[in-house]
């Protein structure tokens, strides 16, 4: 049972990571810096609860703000370049953050042992959950309520004017600019929203793994972050969790019985998925089809009592 709960935690946190990349991708920018924001959030939240003994929620809030602030700071210089140059710039930023934490040493002696981030050895003993008596189920519920909150916020944003503006910039920057949209402001705010979500997710990640290390936040995590929304499809916010479940649940955990061959299949399946469904698993067409199905079920459900009468 604990295994499945652990899997749910992983899926939840990775959904947050994917959603942070989803915001940026909506504006047509590919950012591989999400792992960097994630790392910033993880270290900030961990240091606040462990070294400053803050409660969890304010620590997560500060981590989210830190992620957003860093994203904003990166967004301004990085968004001067477009498209594929941005990919490179954000890859470099992510690596720079990773290397920063690789060299980051800030330990405090507490009760005979030294705690805090310690360079290449990472940051051990983030024991907020066990110290405060949270069971695994509590943690899962906490993670998923956070995911639900973020998804609801993004779903609502998608339906508001802000979402329309983001998508307009993503579809055609020039057209958006000529309707009077400040493209730079939109891009930087999308980056900042992504940074907030990634920092928040990173904070949760640091607490449920209890041990964070610079290796965890490398290019691989960054590519996973953009893999989720691209694979899931950008037409709806629900594509991202679908892709996380597909990758984390099916490809990584579900195929464990294949042993060594699983990893081979993993890259191959991503290539195959992109060849077969270049617009993602849940593209615009299937979203509309699902909506129709939903409406039909609703109509039928509404029709039943009349038939009984």
């Amino acid at each position, binding site marked *: 049972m604990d295994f499945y709960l652990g899997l749910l935690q992983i899926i939840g946190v990775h959904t947050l990571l994917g959603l942070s990349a989803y915001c940026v*991708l909506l504006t047509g920018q*590919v950012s591989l810096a999400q792992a960097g924001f994630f790392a910033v959030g993880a270290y900030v939240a961990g240091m606040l609860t462990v070294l400053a003994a803050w409660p969890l929620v304010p620590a997560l809030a500060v981590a989210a703000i830190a992620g957003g602030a860093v994203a904003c700071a990166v967004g301004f*210089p*990085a968004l*001067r*370049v477009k*498209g*594929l*140059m941005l*990919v*490179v*710039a954000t*890859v*470099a*930023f992510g*690596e*720079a953050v990773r*290397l*920063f934490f*690789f*060299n980051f040493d800030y330990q405090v002696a507490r009760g005979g042992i030294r705690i805090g981030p310690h360079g*290449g050895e990472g940051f051990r003993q983030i024991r907020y959950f066990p110290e405060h008596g949270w069971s695994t189920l509590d943690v899962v519920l906490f993670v998923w309520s956070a995911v639900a909150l973020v998804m609801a916020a993004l779903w609502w944003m998608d339906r508001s004017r802000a979402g329309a503006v983001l998508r307009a910039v993503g579809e055609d920057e020039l057209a958006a600019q000529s309707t009077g949209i400040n493209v730079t402001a939109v891009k930087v705010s999308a980056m900042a929203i992504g940074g907030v979500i990634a920092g928040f997710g990173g904070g949760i990640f640091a607490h449920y793994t209890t041990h964070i290390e610079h290796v965890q936040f*490398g*290019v*691989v995590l960054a*590519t996973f972050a*953009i*893999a989720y929304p*691209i*694979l899931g499809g*950008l037409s709806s916010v629900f594509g991202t969790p679908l892709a996380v479940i597909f990758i984390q649940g099916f490809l990584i955990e579900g195929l464990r019985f294949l042993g*060594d061959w699983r*990893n*081979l299949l*993993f*890259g*191959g*399946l*991503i*290539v195959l*998925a*992109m*060849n077969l469904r*270049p*617009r993602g698993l849940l593209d615009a067409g299937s979203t509309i089809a699902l909506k129709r199905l939903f409406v039909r079920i609703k109509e039928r459900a509404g029709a039943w009592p009349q038939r009984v009468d």
Partner: protein
Amino acid sequence: MNILDAIDTIQSIADGVLFGATYALLGIGFTLVFGVMHKINLSYAAASVGASYASLLILAGIKAPPPLVFLLAAICGGFIGGMVYIVAFRFIPLANPLATLMSTVGLLLLIDEIIVHTTAGVPLAYPALFSDVIIRAGPFSLRGDLMFVFVLGCICMMLLLLLLYRTKLGLATRAVSQQPVAAELCGISITGVNGLTFVITGVVGGIAGAMIGAAIGMLSPLLSLPLTVKGLIVTVIGGLGSIPGAIIAGLLVGGLENLFQFFRGVSERDLYIMLLLFVFLVFRPGGLFAASAERD
């Protein structure tokens, strides 16, 4: 003391510049694909490392003399490049850059895993070709293997430039990179040119991979991610789509990297290279040799 320090500094820069030839070749690979298709092939460095692995395995299999490894690496690289094009580019609509980006990421993971799978993840020792040759020039000494890598890299770049600017194929490649539609109207097969570009970049990548193996004396699957990042940085510093830019940026990054390593140690080395990239993005977003004008 001061003079000795200066000598050491210059020595480390020189070593770095010599090794930078490999970065320059990787940067050229990224740049060529970008120039022709306006897409980034993230699996390129992994494919290069894969090609040098394959050449090493073939060499061990047929018991050929070690210098042949470069030729084999070039052939394997060309083959892998062609495969990359078919698998990750050919059947994905051109108008969808995200899908190609993702498929090359998938391919990066796939190639890495194939390497790990066939070699059980153990780093392979690379045949030492010129490691016992040391050229002394006054207080400085130049390592034979690095000199060899540099010379080979220069020959490759020269041949590539000749190919691009003196042959029909090069003309077609440049035409496609400038105006795909007009090129197609002139009877150039875009698919063919794109595929050939991937084969050529694959050959270059294979040689670069072999050169890296020869220069650091071993191959490891862990090389592919750092090399991807370095290759991308070189591409951006040089200016996307510019071959001379990639060459100069490669040598620059190689030299500075070794300099930072000399002063600040190996763990902080890459951090400064990233900062250098940001400096370039802020002050010269187009890179050293930006494309002259926006073309449509």
